[in-house]
């Protein structure tokens, strides 16, 4: 064993023999046996399953393209004027550029069908 120069001095032997005596070592309380391995594994598996369940509940499912295209309800006009009656003033049958303010524009395919003028149209005039 390599020694440093100071260790060769005679007083170092004295230091070893006169080092304060710590007394007898105390008795150690018995240490409980560690948990069996299968218990540890069981806890690990249970924790992993719990995490997966929690993640499945918490993380929202991704939106698929089919869900986007198929979930739309069919278009239905809000109000369909009865045939033969006068068109509602809230509907405007015309071009979008002519849409007056305060009126709802209806697309062309939903335009209200207007019945033919009554037979006595000319007399009413």
């Amino acid at each position, binding site marked *: 064993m*390599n020694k440093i120069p100071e260790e060769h001095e005679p007083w170092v032997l004295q230091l070893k023999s006169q080092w304060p005596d710590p007394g*007898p*070592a105390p008795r150690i309380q018995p240490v409980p046996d*560690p948990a069996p391995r299968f218990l540890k594994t069981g806890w690990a598996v249970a924790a992993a399953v719990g995490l997966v369940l929690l993640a499945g509940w918490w993380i929202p499912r991704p939106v698929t393209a089919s869900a986007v295209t198929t979930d739309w309800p069919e278009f239905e006009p809000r109000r369909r004027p009865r045939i033969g009656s006068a068109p509602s003033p809230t509907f405007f049958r015309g071009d979008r550029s002519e849409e007056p303010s305060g009126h709802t524009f209806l697309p062309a395919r939903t335009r209200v069908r207007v019945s033919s003028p009554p037979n006595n149209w000319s007399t009413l005039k």
Partner: protein
Amino acid sequence: MMDLMADTSPPESPDFASSESIHTLEWLLEEHREVCWGFLMARMRHVEDAQDALQETWIRAHRAWPRYREQGQFRAWILRIARREALRIQRKNQRRNQGTEIWDAAETPAPDRISEQQDEVLRMHRAIDRLSPKEREAVWLRIVEECTFREIAQIQRVPEGTAVTRVRRGLVHVKNRLTGDTK
């Protein structure tokens, strides 16, 4: 003290949780109980704290045993655990232990009853007592326990050169205090 490691290295056991392996650990711990106690007292100088640290060291050793891979270096392994526990307990009890030492004035005999030899021993104890904990620890490991510098470095988790420096500085300080040279 003879190196216990020559005959006490645990068998190469792949299953550290087996009862046989635990018995090996128990046997090794019992073999190193006095060493740990001496180390903890040299480090802590407080009986109750050292007892707590020893108990905690045993518990930690049981927990860390499955990860023990330092075949043939059990002494360094267990003393490293003991040192960590000593530091933890000292940090926790720092305020409580101020001024409480193992070699307190109550144990010192009256001056008129001190023989020359006793005086020499007392001066030695005081010189040791005034070392820093790291130096005292290193000197104890080297001089009393006859550890190699590599073992001291492993236990204190420092480079080997630092371990050499600590031992050397500790010895110089003790010598200076014994000779009255306090430079």
